């Protein structure tokens, strides 16, 4: 025994030494993108607690862009400029942060089409839409009757709908104040279906499906034969409201919730839903006025499957399922019981047959529960510990992340045989195969988004870099070829070939299309206008001066709005604007755009202002002054640029 122990221990210790060299010898070549050349893929990575989405190039892992969605971003003034503030309006007031977990990319016939990216906000339930021409957040909609918008914003095959499923069941908005102990009676989950306008991407809360007080976790739409269905995983079928760590792990099976959204859509259109009085913010950004506005919505259509039968079914699934993923053929869906040691794979065809034969094991809160064995295609046995998420390649293989055992396991969807396994460093959460959630996976790589980094990079105190790892999956064996750090905490990510979007990328905004109410389309239109205590500065920026750059007649107590229009019509010539004492951020103004900084002078004096983006050789000269006089002062309002100096 002792001898065996020593040998095993020795083996274990030796292996640890090889960790750093566990990459393939040609890894450097595989990830090298020569200076001046492009990556093959865009990788859109959720930012978790930074509330943003970051964009990386693959295979290099180079950070290309951070797209602020649910969080203010001082780097470019998102959420700080007067134009963008309204994007963060909610029924709870102005909420400048959120917890951004998942993204989805718009699809046409189940294939990425490069139009939009959708993002969820988990904390104050919202969904957002980013335009992939401008890489800007164009719309954010709050979700009523919801707590914890985790199971979101997954998308149907033709971008008909994105969904918003509640991780936290809560009392509905029309009966908010109930005892926590009355959880089982009064707390509900909802699955919201948000329709997407195929022309402009605009979102609309089409209907909500009322569910028992379970915790919806993740979801995927069907595809091909299962096109009409949406599958949600759930945990806490125990409906515990305290110490879920123990109390929500009592049942050996929870559920996959299968919703026939086509049927639900018909029911909603036929007026079979209840009209619920709600209040939620719907914020849209207009690219012509360069301004966001909030519309307050007041109604939601609620469909109750206990009364409107035959469009919601529960499928037992071991054990606190997390990921719920549909394979490219749409014939199979995979539940990943995050506490389980098997991966159940369900058959859509069998599910249809079981529904037709009413092969139920009973009901759960008035919703039929199908028999596990009747829907099961099979289980992947002993795949690893703690399966979380599954993505697919185009060859019938699945890649599942395992948090507890910290590895990616490749297995075959038809045969359920484990084909390969590879460790991740450490404790992988989500993973992504480019297009690996669609009908047409692009394959080539699987990327691990890890939860723990520990010793993988130079240490930076207690708070470490977040980490992603790139694996080559072109061969039979997965091979680790790159570690790259990420910002925020990466949850779900997806990737698409750069060729789908790079040529449509916007270079600048056309000045002639700028309909901002305070635009100055040329230096001749620059001016300063006083309206009571509000002072509007119609300012222009062009290499290398601001107009006006000398302003007097502003008084303490004024609110000064700097409406800065960037007059450039050239690629990659932003200007920035900042003024001493501004209690917000700088603003960054793209060519042809107008953005506004609000500034409230707090003392008399002459205050410098300047361009914050190094725009030209004379960038340092791109500066000016504003004179602030005491309240009640008689200093006349005047402004100028380049006025002859007084001799």
């Amino acid at each position, binding site marked *: 025994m*002792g001898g065996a*122990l020593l040998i095993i221990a*020795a083996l274990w210790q030796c292996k640890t030494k*090889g*960790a750093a060299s566990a990459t393939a010898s040609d890894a450097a070549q595989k990830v090298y993108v020569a200076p001046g050349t492009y990556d093959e893929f865009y990788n859109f990575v959720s930012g978790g607690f930074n509330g943003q989405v970051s964009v990386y190039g693959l295979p290099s892992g180079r950070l290309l862009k951070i797209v602020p969605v649910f969080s203010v971003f001082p780097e470019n003034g998102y959420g700080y400029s007067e134009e963008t503030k309204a994007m963060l309006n909610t029924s709870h007031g102005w909420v400048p942060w959120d917890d951004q977990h998942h993204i989805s990319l718009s699809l046409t016939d189940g294939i990425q089409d490069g139009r939009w990216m959708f993002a969820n906000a988990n904390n104050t339930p919202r969904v957002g839409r980013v335009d992939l021409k401008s890489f800007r957040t164009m719309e954010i909609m709050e979700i009523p009757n919801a707590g914890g918008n985790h199971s979101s914003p997954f998308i149907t095959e033709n971008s008909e709908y994105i969904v918003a499923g509640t991780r936290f069941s809560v009392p509905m908005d029309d009966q908010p104040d109930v005892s926590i102990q009355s959880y089982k009676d009064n707390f509900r989950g909802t699955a919201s279906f948000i329709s997407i306008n195929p022309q402009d991407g605009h979102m609309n809360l089409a209907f909500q499906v009322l569910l028992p007080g379970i915790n919806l976790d993740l979801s995927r739409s069907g595809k091909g034969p299962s096109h009409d269905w949406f599958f949600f995983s759930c945990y806490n079928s125990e409906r515990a409201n305290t110490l879920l760590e123990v109390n929500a*792990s009592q049942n050996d099976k929870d559920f996959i919730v299968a919703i026939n959204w086509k049927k639900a859509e018909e029911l909603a259109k036929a007026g079979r839903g209840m009209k619920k009085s709600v209040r939620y913010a719907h914020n849209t950004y207009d690219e012509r006025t360069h301004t966001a506005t909030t519309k307050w919505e007041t109604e939601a259509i609620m469909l109750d499957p206990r009364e409107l039968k035959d469009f919601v079914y529960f499928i037992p699934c071991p054990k606190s399922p997390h990921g719920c993923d549909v394979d490219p053929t749409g014939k199979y869906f995979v539940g990943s019981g995050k506490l389980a*040691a098997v991966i159940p794979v369900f058959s859509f065809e069998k599910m249809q047959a079981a529904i037709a034969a009413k092969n139920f094991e009973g009901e759960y809160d008035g919703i039929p529960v199908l028999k596990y064995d009747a829907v099961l295609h099979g289980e992947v046995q002993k795949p690893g510990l703690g399966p979380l998420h599954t993505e697919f390649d185009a060859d019938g293989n699945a890649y599942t992340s395992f948090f507890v055992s910290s590895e990616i396991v490749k297995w075959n969807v038809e045969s359920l045989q484990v084909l390969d396994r590879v460790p991740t460093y450490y*404790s992988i959460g989500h993973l992504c195969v480019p297009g690996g959630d669609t009908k047409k996976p692009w394959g080539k790589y699987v990327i691990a988004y890890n939860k*723990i980094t520990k010793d993988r990079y130079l240490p930076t105190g207690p708070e470490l870099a977040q980490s992603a790892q790139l694996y080559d999956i072109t061969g039979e064996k997965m091979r680790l070829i790159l570690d790259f750090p990420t910002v925020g905490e990466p949850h779900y990510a997806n990737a698409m070939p750069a060729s789908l979007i790079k040529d449509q990328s916007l270079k600048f905004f056309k000045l002639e299309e700028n309909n901002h109410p305070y635009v100055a389309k040329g230096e001749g239109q620059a001016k300063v206008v006083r309206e009571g205590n509000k002072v509007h500065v119609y300012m222009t920026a062009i290499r290398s001066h601001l107009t006006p750059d000398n302003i007097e007649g502003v008084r303490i107590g004024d609110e000064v709005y700097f409406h800065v229009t960037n007059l450039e019509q050239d690629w990659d010539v932003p200007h920035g604007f900042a003024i001493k004492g501004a209690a917000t951020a700088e603003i960054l103004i793209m060519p042809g755009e107008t953005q506004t900084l609000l500034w409230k002078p707090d003392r008399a004096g002459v205050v410098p202002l300047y361009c914050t983006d190094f725009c030209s050789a004379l960038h340092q000269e791109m500066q000016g002054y504003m004179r602030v006089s005491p309240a009640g002062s008689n200093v006349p309002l005047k402004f100028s640029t380049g006025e002859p100096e007084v001799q």
Partner: protein
Amino acid sequence: MLLIMKNKLYFFSFFLLLAVFSACTDNTPTADATAASAAGQSAVQDDVSQKNIVQIAVGSKDHTTLVAAVKAAGLVDALSNAGPFTVFAPTDAAFAKLPKETLDDLMKPENKNALSDILEYHTFVGVVKPEQMRDGQKLNQVNLKNITLSVQDGKVTVNGSAQIVASVPASNGIVHVVDAVLLPPK
């Protein structure tokens, strides 16, 4: 109900392993199936943080068989990861109650699945402290089979046979030392 946490100072017999470790060369591991258990968090060099479940077991002179079994089953990294886990840790004396041939069989590479099934039956994903345990409480273990706790006079027994004799908090969960091996129901 409260069990007193034994703040036992475990004795390290680790110097032997360290000697072996220092003799290792920097081999590049081959991409075989064993790679899954290679170089996870168990390899992180960190002498400062609270000990995880594996480190506690390795540091215990009463758990050499369990440690050997965890290694043979390829669960060292899993149990060094974030967890959280509640591990019921049979002592060497508990393992000695099993027929010797049964134990020897389990340690053979071809029986790795059976061994890991038994070890997974000793592991719950989540932290259950002694004071949270209730008489008749069931815990669904990693291998998807239930154990049942009974609590009498402040003593907790698992499946009516294995008594918790000490509980040691770990960075990634808690270890309950038990005096019998739990065998999963067929």
